[in-house]
């Protein structure tokens, strides 16, 4: 996998690599930052929530304490100020009880004073007792005697003492205590009951639970629920609460996992009663509150990320674009070199930062030097080739000179002094043209004059064994040609074509223009050239072949191709027993134009 990524990375552009690397780093950085910030926020919010819940619990505890103390105060007042040491028959008990009830009836359901055997001594408000109700069997009554000197607090229950009209019933929390009743001097055991309205406690907690996260509930020291916002659902088994565990837990805050849910719990015990106020905050409710912040955080992170990605892209573009352009210009140059185009250092891109510009300039300088070296090399090669051909050309002269002088010697020996004079004159003319003031390029006219002189010499030498005709289009006479290219062809036509034909040999020299080019052909009616020989005449092997110097045709062809390039050179056509035609193919360049161009170079 890593190898694949590495390979993929290598294939991509520098800009892509820089952009991707920076983007990846940015994503990791921003994601880490966002996660850290989010985690920190969650922790902070959680801590703050626990703190707030702690304050709420303290507040509720204070309120509940006040409420309970108030109720205990009623019980104490009733007992210590009214019942104790007062004869049961005294009307004062009922009167004081009614006064106390009236003063606190918002929080009270009833106040009852009963004897130890369950008989009601006094009650407020006055109401008819339910038939068949045995107070002794009720929990509050029994607990009062279990906890003498203490006030017992019951859990909420439906009051079952008085008959209420309209099918009403009252949920109450009973404060019961054992009391001493005085009856005509004797002291009896009795129970004083103060039934607190459960709705008072309920309202206190409902206010706290109205809004905000989590909930607060109340249970007694045994974990029996006194108030819970879902108490009915808990009683019905629809909802679970960890009240039994909470009851055992000391005051403070802690986290727990209950019923698959993580929750923060704050506990506080209410003095005297042992009741516990418990604040529970499920983590899922905190998460709901965090949802909006999380969304905003994601949005901000993504916006920042987008801007960074865009910035990365622009910066990487600015940084890498000059490199890319430089690379493209080098590739363009490479392409040109591959296609044999001229290397042009001006195509090299120079731009961007100073490092890239320096690189471009260095490459440009290198190309310039390379170009100079290449040109020098080509020039040297060309000069070398030329000097080689000049050496070849110079080989003609002794070759021809030997033959001509041989003929002159032969004429003088035969006392043909006129012919000898004529021949030496022609030879002189021949050399004059050969010299041509050192120019290799002469007019076709001069070349033909040269050829004619040569033919004249050879005719004398070969005692007119052949006839020669010359037909040159005047239109091409002023065109440029390489000197001494017709004479070797005439020489070949004589040596290999008509030498042994005893006066029947014919040599035709023609010059004409065709398709904008110049053609000079030398034809003979000799025996022709065998095909296998024909195919090698213009190859390198021809240099070491045959009579004389053996270098005529190859030399001429090479010289034409060096000077004029392209498709120019010799064309050889031959048929056995019919004859041979060797045609020189030259570009049609007027001599003035050629000299002008040469002068320009």
């Amino acid at each position, binding site marked *: 996998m890593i190898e694949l990524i590495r390979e993929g990375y290598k294939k991509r552009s520098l800009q892509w690599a820089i952009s991707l690397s920076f983007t990846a780093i940015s994503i990791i950085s921003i994601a880490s930052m966002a996660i850290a910030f989010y985690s920190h926020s969650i922790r902070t919010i959680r801590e703050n929530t626990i703190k707030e819940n702690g304050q709420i619990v303290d507040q509720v505890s204070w309120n509940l304490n006040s409420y309970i103390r108030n109720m205990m105060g009623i019980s104490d007042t009733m007992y210590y100020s009214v019942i104790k040491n007062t004869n049961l028959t005294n009307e004062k008990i009922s009167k004081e009880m009614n006064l106390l009830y009236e003063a606190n009836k918002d929080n009270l359901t009833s106040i009852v004073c009963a004897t130890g055997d369950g008989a009601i001594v006094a009650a407020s408000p006055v109401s008819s007792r339910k038939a068949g109700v045995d107070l002794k069997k009720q929990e509050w009554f029994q607990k009062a005697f279990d906890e003498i000197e203490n006030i017992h607090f019951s859990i*909420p229950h439906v009051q079952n003492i008085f008959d209420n009209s309209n099918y009403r019933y009252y949920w109450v929390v009973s404060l019961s205590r054992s009391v001493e009743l005085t009856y005509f001097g004797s002291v009896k055991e009795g129970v004083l009951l103060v039934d607190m309205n459960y709705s008072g406690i309920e309202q206190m907690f409902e206010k706290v639970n109205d809004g905000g996260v989590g909930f607060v509930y109340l249970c007694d020291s045994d974990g029996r629920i006194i108030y819970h916002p879902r108490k009915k659902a808990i009683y019905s088994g629809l909802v679970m609460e960890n009240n039994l565990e909470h009851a055992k837990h000391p005051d403070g805050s802690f986290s727990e996992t209950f019923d698959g849910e993580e929750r923060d719990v704050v506990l506080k015990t209410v003095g005297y009663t042992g009741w516990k106020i418990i604040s529970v905050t499920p983590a899922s409710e905190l998460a709901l509150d965090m949802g909006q912040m999380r969304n905003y955080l994601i949005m901000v992170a993504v*916006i920042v990320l*987008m801007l960074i990605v865009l910035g990365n892209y622009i910066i990487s573009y600015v940084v890498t674009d000059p490199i890319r352009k430089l690379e493209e210009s080098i590739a363009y140059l490479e392409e040109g070199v591959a296609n044999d185009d001229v290397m042009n250092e001006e195509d090299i891109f120079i731009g961007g930062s100073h490092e890239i510009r320096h690189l471009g300039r260095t490459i440009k300088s290198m190309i310039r030097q390379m170009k100079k070296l290449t040109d020098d090399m080509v020039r040297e090669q060309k000069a070398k080739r030329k000097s080689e051909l000049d050496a070849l050309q110079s080989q003609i002269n002794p070759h021809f000179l030997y033959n001509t002088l041989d003929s002159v010697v032969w004429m003088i020996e035969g006392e043909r002094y006129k012919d000898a004079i004529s021949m030496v004159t022609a030879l002189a003319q021949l050399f004059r043209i050969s010299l041509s003031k050192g120019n290799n390029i002469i007019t076709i006219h001069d070349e033909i004059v040269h050829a004619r002189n040569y033919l004249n010499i050879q005719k004398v030498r070969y005692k007119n064994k052949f006839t020669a005709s010359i037909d040159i289009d005047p239109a091409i006479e002023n065109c440029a040609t390489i000197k001494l290219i017709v004479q070797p062809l005439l020489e070949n036509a004589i040596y290999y074509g008509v030498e042994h034909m005893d006066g029947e040999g014919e040599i035709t020299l023609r010059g004409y223009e065709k398709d904008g080019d110049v053609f000079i052909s030398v034809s003979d009616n000799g025996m022709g050239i065998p095909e296998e020989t024909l195919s090698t005449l213009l190859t390198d092997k021809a240099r070491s072949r045959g009579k004389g110097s053996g270098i005529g045709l190859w030399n001429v062809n090479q010289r034409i191709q060096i000077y004029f390039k392209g498709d120019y050179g010799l064309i050889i056509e031959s048929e056995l027993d019919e004859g041979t035609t060797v045609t020189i193919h030259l570009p049609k360049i007027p001599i003035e134009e050629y000299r002008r161009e040469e002068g320009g170079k």
Partner: protein
Amino acid sequence: MKRISNRPFIGAAIVFIAFIVIMLLQIGGDEANKDEETRVSMIVYGDDSERWENMRQGAALACQDKGADISLITMLSENDAAEQEEIIGREIEDGADALIIAACSSERIREYIDSNRIKIPIIFVETMEQLSGKIIDISSDDYRMGYELGKEMLDSESDIVTVAVISENTQRDSVALREKGFRDALSEGQTGKIINWSGNEYENLAGTRVFIQRSVVSEATDVIVTFDNSTTDALIDALSNLNMDRKVYSISTSNKAVYNLYNKDIKALMYPDEFSMGYLAAKYALDRKDAQKMYSGKEIEYRIVKKENMYDEDNQTLLFPFVN
């Protein structure tokens, strides 16, 4: 020279804009959701909303958990199926997101629901037999309640008592099943004469009460049995009017029945947990998957309560709703 491609810029811009739009839509959606609270309608029979208070509280608690709103809709009469059909139709038109129905006539309402292809969730409270599709009912085992009430009566009364069975409101499958269970229990034991007081469907409590008064006066009985709230209340009123005492065995959740359980005629009261019925019905109405996960296979509890045990801690919470 190659020109720089615009595609990455365009791509980034599209992703960026799409993200912003999605976020705004989501935030907007959250705001809209706050405004448009899910509304659950609880359509019940009878005109006494107090009778359904316990069930409403259960449904309200479930709705509160889900941030939904619950409204209790009663009828003008006890058994007018046409009226209940009209209410159902009107609630759907008014945009209720789910319906919890206590059908006054099982057959009629079942047919109405089936024929109208209602697309919102519908949950029946009380037994509805032969429900089609995804419609479910949340109820106690009515047959079992009737059967156990019969067993209780057999155990408590002598073999020769005359038993009057008031067969009212049997157009409701729940009542019919309770009665069937009770009669099956009786057939397994020994009693005296069994009298059937049935065949009359009265539109209001007064009509039923008069019918029962006449029946009580005309036929001597030791025990009278009822299977629903309104009939039980009518019987209590009838006995009170006549100043007559009878042993009553009843399946009811009315305050009157609870009051009379201690003070007067009712010897045994079969009391289903309507709070749980309402809670679960709303749970199913709002999130069936969640509800099934939590409460699949859970049966609605019922208890047989007598004077002696009605103030027990467990029974108190069932018989006396906290908010009075």
